[in-house]
C-alpha cells in the first residue's frame, strides 16, 4: 500500500509542476466590493449595473465608438481574455468589507480589487490590498486621508473632499462677488464615520482660512431614529450657509425635520453622497428645492462628453433610471482599471500596478468633464475638477463654474412659509 501512496503523491507533484504556467490567462478576475444591502444598497446596485456595462465593453459585447474604449474592446493586450467581475457585499461595514476583500484575494484569486463607496470600507479593503500586493482602484470614496497613507497599491480616480470643498469655497467667493452680497457664517454638520469626519475637517480648515465664522460644528449618527434635536441646534445657530455631509437616511430626515421645525437656511451646500441619491429627490421632492451639492459630474453635462452619452443610454436601458454622478464616477474608475490591465498585457499584480502608474487618459475620452486621468505618487488622480449643482424643479442643474452652468443660482432658498 505504502509504495502506491508514494507513487501517487509523486505523480501528482510532478503533474502539477509540469503543467504549463499560465502564460496567457484565460480570464481577468476583478473583485468588486460594494454595499449591496443596508442603507446604501441603492448606490451599490447602481454601481453594479454600470460596472457590468464596463465589463461588457471590455469583453467586446458592447461597442463605444471612441478611441479609448475601442482600444479596450476584447482586451487585446491579454489576447482576448474575458473579464469576470465578482461582486461582494460589504453592507456598509468596514469589517465585512475587509473580510470580503480577504476572501476575494485568497480564495477567488482576483487580480485586482475595485470599490467601495463608503470611505470607511475603502480604507479597510485597501489595507488588505496593500498587504497582499493587489491593485485596488477606487472611483468614488472622497475622504482625503485615503491617498495620504503612503500606499503603493491604492489608486483613486475621482476627486476627494479637499478638491470638492475647495470648489465649494471658490464658488462662495465668486458668488458673493457676482451678486454683491456677503456671506459670513457657516454651520458644519457631518455624519460620524470617516467620510463625514474628514469632510468636516476640510470644511473647518477652509472656513477658517477664508475667514468665515463657524456658527455650528456638529457631528451626529447617520442612522438615528430622529434628528430633531440636531435641526433645533441648526436653527439656533442661524448660519448663512449650511454645510451638511450626510448619507441617504439622514439627508432625508434633515429635510423633513427642517420643514417641521421651520428651519430656513438661505444656502445649503451638501457634500454629495446622501443628498445626491435618486431616492433623495423622490422622498422629499420639492422640499429640497434649492439644495446645492458638489459633484464631479452632472446629468445635464452628458451632452458635453460623447462617452457619457453612450453609457448613459445603456444605463437607462439596463437600470431604468437616469445616469448621474455616482454611476459616472464608478464606471470611470472601472474603465481606468480595465485599461491598465489591458496595457499591462498580463494579470500579474506588479504589471498592473505599473500600468496604473503610467495611466494618462485624455479628458475628452472620459465620461467626466475632468481634464483627464493621471495619478500622482500618492495614487490620486490630479486632473480632477469639481462642479457645483443645485436642485431646481426636482432636477439637478450645473450652476458652477459659471462657464459650464446651465442655470442661474437660486438664492436665497425660499422660506417654508413662502413656498406653495
Amino acid at each position, binding site marked *: 500500500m505504502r509504495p502506491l501512496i508514494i507513487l501517487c503523491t509523486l505523480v501528482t507533484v510532478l503533474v502539477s509542476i509540469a503543467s504549463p504556467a499560465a502564460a496567457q490567462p484565460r480570464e481577468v478576475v476583478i473583485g468588486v466590493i460594494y454595499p449591496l*444591502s*443596508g*442603507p446604501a*444598497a*441603492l448606490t451599490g*446596485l447602481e454601481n453594479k449595473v454600470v460596472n457590468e456595462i464596463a465589463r461588457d465593453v471590455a469583453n467586446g459585447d458592447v461597442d463605444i465608438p471612441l478611441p479609448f474604449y475601442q482600444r479596450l474592446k476584447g482586451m487585446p493586450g491579454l489576447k482576448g481574455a474575458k473579464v469576470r467581475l465578482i461582486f461582494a457585499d460589504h453592507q456598509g461595514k468596514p469589517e465585512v468589507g475587509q473580510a470580503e476583500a480577504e476572501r476575494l484575494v485568497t480564495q477567488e484569486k482576483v487580480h485586482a480589487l475595485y470599490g467601495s463607496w463608503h470611505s470607511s470600507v475603502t480604507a479597510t479593503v485597501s489595507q488588505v490590498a496593500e498587504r497582499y500586493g493587489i491593485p485596488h482602484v477606487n472611483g468614488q470614496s472622497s475622504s482625503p486621508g485615503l491617498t495620504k497613507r503612503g500606499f503603493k497599491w491604492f489608486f483613486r480616480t475621482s476627486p476627494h473632499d479637499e478638491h470638492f470643498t475647495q470648489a465649494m469655497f471658490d464658488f462662495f467667493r465668486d458668488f458673493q462677488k457676482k451678486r454683491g452680497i456677503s456671506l459670513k457664517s457657516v454651520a458644519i454638520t457631518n455624519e*460620524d464615520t470617516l467620510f463625514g469626519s474628514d469632510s468636516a475637517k476640510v470644511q473647518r480648515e477652509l472656513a477658517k482660512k477664508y475667514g468665515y465664522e463657524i456658527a455650528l460644528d*456638529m*457631528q*451626529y*449618527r447617520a*442612522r*438615528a*431614529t*430622529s*434628528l*430633531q*434635536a*440636531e435641526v*433645533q*441646534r441648526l436653527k439656533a445657530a442661524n448660519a448663512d450657509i449650511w454645510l451638511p455631509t450626510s448619507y*441617504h*437616511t439622514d439627508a*432625508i*430626515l434633515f429635510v*423633513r*425635520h427642517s*420643514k*417641521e*421645525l*421651520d428651519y430656513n437656511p438661505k444656502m445649503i451646500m451638501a457634500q454629495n453622497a446622501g443628498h445626491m*441619491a435618486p*431616492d433623495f429627490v*423622490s*422622498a*422629499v*421632492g420639492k422640499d429640497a428645492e434649492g439644495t446645492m451639492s458638489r459633484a464631479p459630474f452632472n446629468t445635464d453635462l452628458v451632452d458635453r462628453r460623447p462617452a457619457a452619452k453612450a453609457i448613459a443610454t445603456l444605463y437607462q436601458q439596463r437600470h431604468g433610471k437616469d445616469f448621474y454622478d455616482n454611476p459616472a464616477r464608478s464606471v470611470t474608475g472601472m474603465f481606468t482599471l480595465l485599461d491598465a490591465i489591458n496595457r499591462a498585457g498580463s494579470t500579474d499584480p506588479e504589471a498592473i500596478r505599473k500600468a496604473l502608474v503610467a495611466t494618462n487618459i485624455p479628458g475628452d475620452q472620459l465620461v467626466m468633464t475632468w481634464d483627464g486621468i493621471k495619478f500622482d505618487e500618492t495614487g490620486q488622480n490630479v486632473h480632477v475638477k469639481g462642479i457645483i449643482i443645485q436642485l431646481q424643479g426636482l432636477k439637478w442643474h450645473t450652476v458652477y463654474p459659471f462657464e459650464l452652468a446651465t442655470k442661474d443660482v437660486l438664492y436665497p432658498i425660499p422660506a417654508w412659509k413662502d413656498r406653495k
Partner: protein
Amino acid sequence: MGCVYALVAAGLSLIFGLMELVNFAHGEFLMLAMYVAFFAWSLGGLDPVIGAPVAAAVLGAVGWLTYHGLIRRVLAAPMLAQIFATFGLGVFLRNGAQFAFGVDFLTVQDPWLAGRLSLGGLFLGLPQVGASLVALAAFLALYLFLSRSETGLALTATAQDRQAASLMGIDTQRMFALGWVIGGACVGVAGALLATFFYIYPDVGGPFALLAYVTVALGGFGNVPGTLAAGVVVGLVEALAGLLIPPAFKYSVVFALYLAVVLWRPQGLFGRF
C-alpha cells in the same frame, strides 16, 4: 418619539412577560408594518392613519403565524435555540423584504399628518404629535383590555403563573398566540404611524428595535404600563441629550441610563421578577 418607542416595545414586553422569550425579529415586524402602511397608501390610497388598523391586523396575523409556525416548536428548547430562532426570522424577513421590495427608500407623500404645531416659540412636528396621541390611545386600549376584559385578565394570569392559569382552565397555547397577535398589532400601529414621517426600507427596523429592547428592559420585562413610562423616558433623554451634548453621543446617554438602571435595579423601573 418616546410614545412610539413605547408602543414598539409594548409588544416585546408582552411577549416576554408571557413566555420569557425575546423576539429578536421585532425590528423586522416594525419594518413590515411600515411597508404594509406604505402599500395601503400607494395601492389603496389609504393615508397611514387609516392604514394603521390595516397594519395592525396584518401584523397581528404575522404574529399569530410566527407563534404557530416557529415559536411553538422552540418553547421547550434551550434559550439559545429560541434566540437563534427569532434572530434567524429577523434576518430572513429583512432579506426577504429586500428581495421583494428592493432597496429604494420609500416615503409616503402628502400624508394627513403633516406640517407643524407652534406653541409659543416651541415647534412640534405634527406627524410626531399625531403619532404620540395615537400611540397613547393604543396604550390605553391595551391597558383596558389587559385589566378589564376577561381574555385580557386570562392573558395577565398566564403571564404571572403559567401553571396556575392552566389549572384554572385557561388554554395556555391560545394565550401565547394571543400575546403574539397583540404584540404584532401594537408594532403594526407603531409602524403605520412612523410611516407618516419616516423613510421605509428593509433595514429600517434596526435602530428602533435596539431602542425597544432598552425600553423594555428599563420599564421592566412584562410590565406594559412600565413600558410606556420607560419609552417616554428614552424619548426625552434622546431629545435632551441631542440638545445638550454633541448629538453623535446622544444614544450613549440613553444606553448609559439603561446600564445604570440595570445595575441598580435589574428588574427595571417597574419590573416584577
